[in-house]
């Protein structure tokens, strides 16, 4: 009965401690999430803002070139970094002077006529200043078009040479048309040549998913700081009675960790539920609250509580132990890829990060929240056992030493 009373008392204390930091914590979470959202928007906007405007001067009454312009403007390869804008020569020159256009393409009146008759034809690129990155890419694409034309013309020319000496059933015009259509067909299906596989530094997860789980874990660690208040020097009457023997100390330690776990997990589940509601309202489809998440969050909370208990024990419950806790946790979070993905680390650091608990917590939370897999929790369980064993053993030794 005394144990139960003590448990209730510790749970109450844990809630008291955690509620004190709750408002600050919610503000931090809100700020971090809005930062994540703003960075996402800023990334997209920067890419859009860095897209160059290219003024294109088309000859009048040339429907063929107009069609070609529309085709080029819809090319996926140009989207995101280049906007083709049809305008007059005067507009283009004025636009180049006031930096509205990064470069201009002026197509002469006889360009199309000469091109279809395989005569040399050139358009002019007006370059106001040194080439920027996106302008270089556009020029390279023009070189690519030249290369395709060389390949096509070489095939047709090689057929001409043999047609002088050999008789074929097809005419020259027919052969030209056939070859042109073969190469145009190849050009149109060029994207099918590539078997594309995307590689991301965030693994199989998106930027938002990766950092959302990081933020949840960092929040758990930040919230645990408030539990330092549960390790005061003035022992409670009930705690004193219970800790008269070694088994008593073990029991009180377990109760301390359990009460912290209950406080942390209820708060996290509440937060996840509210995030799911926001997700549903905004139709973002990022988080789905499944029953498995409850088990996962309880296990991860237990792990974080055990970790906090271990650090407090190692710091001998001193006044500045919270500072050491913050610094050690920050180093652990960074080394385990909570801030920068682990692919950027040297291999030795990468190996070291696997030995730290944050890696397992992060992997488990990612697979739990976004794949609904419980497999990642096995390593969390192992870590729980190790942390609990170390935390309890050291705490018992410390208390017995103090006595």
């Amino acid at each position, binding site marked *: 009965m005394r144990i139960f009373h003590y448990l209730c008392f510790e749970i109450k204390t844990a809630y008291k401690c955690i509620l004190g930091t709750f408002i600050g914590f919610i503000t931090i979470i809100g700020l971090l999430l809005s930062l994540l959202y703003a960075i996402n928007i800023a990334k997209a906007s920067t890419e859009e803002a860095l897209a160059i405007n290219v003024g294109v001067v088309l000859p009048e009454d040339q429907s063929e070139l107009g069609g070609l312009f529309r085709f080029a403007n819809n090319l996926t390869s140009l989207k995101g970094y280049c906007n083709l804008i049809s305008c007059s020569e005067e507009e283009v020159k004025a636009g180049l002077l006031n930096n509205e256009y990064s470069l201009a393409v002026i197509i002469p009146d006889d360009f199309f006529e000469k091109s279809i008759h395989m005569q040399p034809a050139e358009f002019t690129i007006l370059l106001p*200043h040194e080439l920027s990155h996106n302008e270089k890419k556009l020029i390279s694409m023009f070189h690519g078009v030249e290369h395709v034309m060389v390949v096509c013309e070489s095939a047709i020319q090689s057929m001409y040479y043999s047609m002088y000496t050999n008789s074929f059933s097809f005419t020259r015009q027919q052969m030209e048309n056939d070859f042109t259509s073969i190469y145009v067909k190849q050009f149109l299906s060029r994207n099918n040549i590539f*078997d*594309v596989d995307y590689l991301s530094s*965030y693994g199989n997860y998106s930027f938002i998913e990766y950092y959302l789980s990081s933020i949840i874990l960092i929040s758990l660690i930040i919230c645990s700081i408030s539990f330092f208040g549960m390790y005061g020097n003035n022992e409670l009457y009930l705690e004193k009675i219970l800790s008269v023997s070694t088994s008593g100390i073990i029991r009180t330690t377990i109760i301390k960790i359990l009460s912290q776990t209950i406080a942390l997990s209820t708060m996290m589940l509440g937060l996840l539920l509210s995030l799911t509601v926001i997700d549903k309202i905004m139709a973002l489809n990022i988080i789905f609250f499944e029953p498995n998440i409850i088990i996962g969050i309880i296990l991860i909370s237990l792990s974080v509580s055990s970790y906090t208990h271990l650090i407090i024990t190692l710091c001998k419950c001193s006044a500045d132990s919270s500072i050491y806790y913050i610094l050690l946790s920050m180093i652990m979070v960074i080394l385990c890829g909570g801030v920068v993905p682990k692919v950027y680390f040297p291999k030795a650091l990468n190996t070291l990060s696997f030995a730290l608990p944050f890696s397992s917590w992060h992997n488990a939370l990612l697979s739990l929240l976004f794949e609904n897999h419980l497999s990642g929790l096995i390593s969390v369980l192992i870590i729980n056992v190790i942390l609990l064993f170390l935390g309890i053993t050291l705490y018992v030794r410390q208390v017995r030493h103090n006595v």
Partner: protein
Amino acid sequence: MFRINLSFIILQIKNCIFSLYFWLKILLVIIVIFLVTQIGVSSDDDTLVLLYNDGSSVADDIIDSMARTDYVGYDFKICKKLDKLKEYVQKGDAVCGIVFDEDFDLAIRTGKLKNCIKYYQSASSIDGFAIKEVVFPFILEAVSNTLIRNYLSETAPDISPEVLDLITSTNDLLNSQTNISIFHIEELGLRSPIIKSSLNLSYNIALWLLFGIALIDVYSLGEIYKAHFSGRKKAVHYLYTFEGALISTLISSLIVGLLFFTGDVLLFLLYGLICTIYACLVRFISKSNKRYTTVIPILMIVCLFISPIIYDLTIIIPSLKYISFLVPTTYFTM
């Protein structure tokens, strides 16, 4: 009211250097800056495209000619290991990696090119499509003889092998010698607009961390000294924390400056001083340490949010510019 006590300053420096807290803090800053320098920050350098031959007999010529090409904006490099290629692409150091394997040989022989090239694209880049446009002509050139053979086998099935060989060798010769130019460039020589295209991420992160250090130092030193003096039952003026925090932040700034940004050491020291004054001001306004601990992370995140550290959000939300002047990092970021 407040006197500078030399022996106290020497004691502070000694305390700083011999404290675990100080070295943990420095270790944290060094790790972060080191990691940030490892991240490829987008710049105006040429886009890196990696090429790898995974057992294809016809790909060597293509890879060589691609690596030799002088297309502006792209840097084609041959990679010797597939793992390395994937690692570079995953990190975003290379925009894409192109792998030619045995399937590619078969595709070139038959003319059926669908999915014949393994193309690893970095998820963080939008350049993937543009690169395909540059790579495609090389593949087309490689397959052109097969296309000619396929065409002739349908239209002139009785053509002799000698004539066929003559046509394909002529095609190869013409491909290597023909030069078509469809455009010429006229440079107008105007002054280029000044655009801040990329931020110096490692420098800015170092500034941000030093700001955090100043904030934490003012808190933590206050706490440590409060505990220390309370043992002697002696009241401590909170300005004593300023002296200690200033020394700690200045030493941190000096170490970071010397390790990573040697040319800007003095600037870093000035920045450390400003940050400590700022942190003390915030501590003074917060009144209690408890309130101050809530303010520290909020201020750090707000600073990351409104100062041009990772992204310059003021370009997208111009009104943020005025709020950004409230934090010291804005005046020093690059």
